[in-house]
């Protein structure tokens, strides 16, 4: 194993696909890692409101152009038109120039969020995918999907050893210990520990409209250790090596293997 993953904690400029596209290329071209992970909607910006309709085609074109340049592995946020006029909040997964997409399942429409105004949600029956680069099997979920147990749980039982989580998490209350950072830290540790997977959280950073994205991207090992943590509030990048040792130790010494599926048949009826 020993796959080196780079977290590209960038500032996205809402609506400026070309500028974001150049930033993606710059990072991909200068990265020494095997796989580069960008934030959610990194190509378009997150708070783009009705600009969504004006830029999704540019985003798809930029996605194709980036794919041509990726001779290893990259994951970044973009918009995908799945049929005419039906858009999804997507992550492009590029492996050796080959392009695929995953889609966000849970579209937040509370507080400041209004994703269901623009996007259709993914379908778990079709859109849960396991990718493989060299000998790393990984899955990708977007931001809000990490606030529910099932998407990551499903991917881990489908065989993922690492979960990449492109995100756009805005700061809510500014204080010394950010509540939202503590929440994410807890969630990532819980996902990693319960599912014995590496979790790789790449957050966007900087202002978009009135909001501010706090960065703080990080990697948690299957043993629940934070292996890498990027700057709060500033652009940053960092590389972490995803290794087998932690996976094995986590799986040898946990009840993960005893997953009792019958609980799901009860959940199914609730």
């Amino acid at each position: 194993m020993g796959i080196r993953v780079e977290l590209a904690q960038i500032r996205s400029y809402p609506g400026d696909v070309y500028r974001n596209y150049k930033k993606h290329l710059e990072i991909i071209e200068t990265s020494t890692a095997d796989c580069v992970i960008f934030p959610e909607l990194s190509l378009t910006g997150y708070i783009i409101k009705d600009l969504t309709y004006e830029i999704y085609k540019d985003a798809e074109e930029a996605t194709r152009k980036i794919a041509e340049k990726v001779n290893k592995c990259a994951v970044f946020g973009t918009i995908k038109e799945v049929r005419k006029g039906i858009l999804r909040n997507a992550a492009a997964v590029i492996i050796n120039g080959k392009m695929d997409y995953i889609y966000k399942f849970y579209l937040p429409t509370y507080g400041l969020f209004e994703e269901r105004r623009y996007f259709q949600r993914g379908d778990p029956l079709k859109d849960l995918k396991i990718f493989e680069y060299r000998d790393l099997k990984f899955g990708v979920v977007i931001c809000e999907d990490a606030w529910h147990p099932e998407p990551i749980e499903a991917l881990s039982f489908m065989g993922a050893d690492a979960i990449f989580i492109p995100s756009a998490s805005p700061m809510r209350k500014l204080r010394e210990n950010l509540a939202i950072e503590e929440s994410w830290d807890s969630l990532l540790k819980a996902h990693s520990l319960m599912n014995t997977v590496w979790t790789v959280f790449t957050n966007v950073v900087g202002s978009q409209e009135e909001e501010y994205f706090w960065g703080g991207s990080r990697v948690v090992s299957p043993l629940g250790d934070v292996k890498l943590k990027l700057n709060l509030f500033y652009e940053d990048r960092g590389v972490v090596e995803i290794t087998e040792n932690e996976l094995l130790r986590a799986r040898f010494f946990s009840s993960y293997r005893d997953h009792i599926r019958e609980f799901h048949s009860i959940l199914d009826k609730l």
Partner: protein
Amino acid sequence: MAFSKFSSFRWYYTLNICSTNILIMVMHEYIRKSLTIDCEAVTNYIVERIREYLEFSNKKGGVIGVSGGVDSAVTATLLAKATDNFFILLMPSSSTPKIDLEDSFEMIKFLNAQNKYKLINIDEIVSLFSNKIETNNKYVIGNIKARVRMIILYAYAQMLDYLVVGTGDKSELLLGYFTKYGDGGVDVLPIGDLYKTQVRMLGKCLGLPERIVTKPSSPALWEGQTAEGELGIDYETIDSILYLRFDEMRSEDEIVKMLGIPIDTIKKVDRLVKISQHKRLPPEIFRLSGRAINSDWRFPRRWA
């Protein structure tokens, strides 16, 4: 009344010089059809909305500035249909064409408002400002004029317990062809969803004096200023582009084909709309708390 914010519209100045080259087009039949309004229905609707808005706001009536142009003539007429409690301010300056003041008085007569208006020449106030600020820049002074008028309107509104009724139309609002906190500083915009050409149609239906309905739009912030001269495009073209671009969400190329006009004209209109978005939204508040105004703290205007 429509006054531009010139700082960001630098390319205008050159266009202004060659305003004789204005692009004029006959309105495309499809767009003419799309923009045709049912005068009676629209009139009844807006009149009722004004009446209701005054009631919900707990205000007794509305004050309005009348310039002699079509927007303020139409809005004042609708206001007068909604309530007897309206008050008109005529606030000419040295750059106000004589004909506009005459037409304003025509409107006073038309609305039977001989006891409900006040004439205040703003030149003295404006020159106090420009002297203190030490400027003779016509664009700066132009915006001061618009904001002086706003101050006077709000003073009257407060004294009368009325609202300030704005006269901006959809074309001006989208282009950003108004002064922030000047003619843009109002409580409500009754004709803000009607394009200029539609306002003219409505004015005609309302039986306004012909000269007002057909008069070229002008902020009259300096002598000889006309909207179409300054923008370099006539309002029929502007409205056609705005309608196709934003109501129908068509691409620049499609619009070129439909209207047979240069793409540069469309780009120009598009750019004006984009750079003026800040004028149409409340000021940005930098998020700091757990629940920030306008972000994730949203309440209707009618709250209490």
